[in-house]
């Protein structure tokens, strides 16, 4: 089997095992580089494609597509929004939205642009008031905005210390926890410069890490993965399941519908707006 044929077979085997296509590309590219550097035959260096693909699949854990299913019954209700109505000038953005999420559940809020997803999240976070309706929240809260949220002239460690301080953490503990969360997102913030020099995707990782600092009970995440590459995106969902398994309540705004089989509740805000348009 020549190298190209072997690499092609490996790609197929990785995908067949449900490995994320982007990750599969990385694995194949890395094997190709290795084969060129070592001048070895693929079978000698890596063995048969299916065996190597199996070893890769085992190393990266369960494939993303078969996300861990519910392990235990969900816990008590942590977030309850009832009859939320919000108008921006004359336009009704939210017309009587209900959302109930328990401990150990992920709720996805979906819908077209401008249908009020971010507004709903900000109302749940207490950053905006609804015109009608009420939000009940039991426990502590972490919020990850869609953008903003970072301070241009602070380095990541200072962000961790600052947010940690607000959640009763000592500086050292906050920085350690921040770096550990960052590592789970495949980001090493130790030597990173001020936030204004970070890429958009990395700034969002910083936002996400800050939301999780201090172990809040409820996490509200507004499309936190913008600018993530595919690998980071996979890490992000892993982090979400880890939080869910730890009994957190998670609300995530998303427009990516391929994720919806991995969440517990889906709140689609689009119909409300369609009705509104017809009315």
């Amino acid at each position, binding site marked *: 089997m020549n190298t190209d044929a072997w690499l092609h077979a490996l790609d197929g085997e990785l995908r067949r095992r449900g490995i994320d296509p982007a990750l599969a590309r*990385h694995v194949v590219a*890395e094997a190709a*580089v*290795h084969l060129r*550097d070592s001048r070895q035959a693929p079978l000698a260096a890596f063995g048969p494609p299916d065996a190597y693909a199996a070893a890769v699949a085992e*190393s990266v854990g369960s494939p993303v597509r078969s996300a861990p299913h519910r392990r235990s019954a969900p816990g008590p209700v942590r977030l309850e929004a009832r009859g939320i109505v919000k108008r921006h000038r004359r336009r009704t953005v939210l017309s009587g939205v209900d959302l109930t999420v328990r401990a150990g559940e992920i709720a996805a809020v979906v819908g077209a642009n401008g249908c009020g997803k971010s507004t709903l999240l900000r109302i749940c976070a207490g950053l905006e008031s609804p015109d009608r309706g009420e939000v009940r929240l039991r426990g502590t809260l972490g919020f990850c905005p869609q953008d903003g949220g970072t301070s241009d002239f602070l380095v990541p460690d200072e962000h961790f210390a600052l947010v940690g301080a607000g959640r009763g953490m000592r500086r050292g503990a906050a920085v350690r926890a921040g*770096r550990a969360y960052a*590592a789970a997102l495949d*980001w090493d913030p130790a030597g990173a410069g001020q936030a204004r020099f970070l890429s958009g995707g990395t700034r969002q990782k910083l936002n996400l890490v800050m939301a999780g600092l201090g172990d809040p009970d409820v996490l509200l995440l507004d499309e936190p993965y913008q600018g993530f590459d595919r690998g980071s995106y996979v890490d992000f969902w892993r982090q979400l399941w880890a939080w869910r398994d730890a009994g957190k309540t998670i609300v995530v705004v998303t427009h990516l519908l391929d994720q919806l089989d991995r969440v517990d509740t889906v709140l689609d805000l689009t119909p409300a707006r369609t009705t509104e348009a017809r009315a």
Partner: protein
Amino acid sequence: MDHERRGQWLRGVLDLCVLAVLLRRESYGYELAQSLDAAGLGPIRGGTLYPVLLRLQRTGMVTAQWREGESGPARKYYRITEAGGEMLRRTAADWETFTRGVDTLLREVATR
């Protein structure tokens, strides 16, 4: 050396050896394999090495980045994280304790 047994030994310590090499400086797969060989571990196959690197990456012990080298094409460079360094230091101490026991017993054999 018995091939089978060498494989078993490697399985137990390869991740630690990889981290130890990365503690010197960041590196990519093939270079890591060469460093491990030079350190006396013998040749490590790509099929053995990369799954270990993936696991280390998944557990946050290393980070990885594709980058152009000074010469040649892009390679995936691995760098040990702070968590990886901590884990390595802890486990190196455990390893010391463990092998001391094995050493003591096996040395008796050599002197008999």
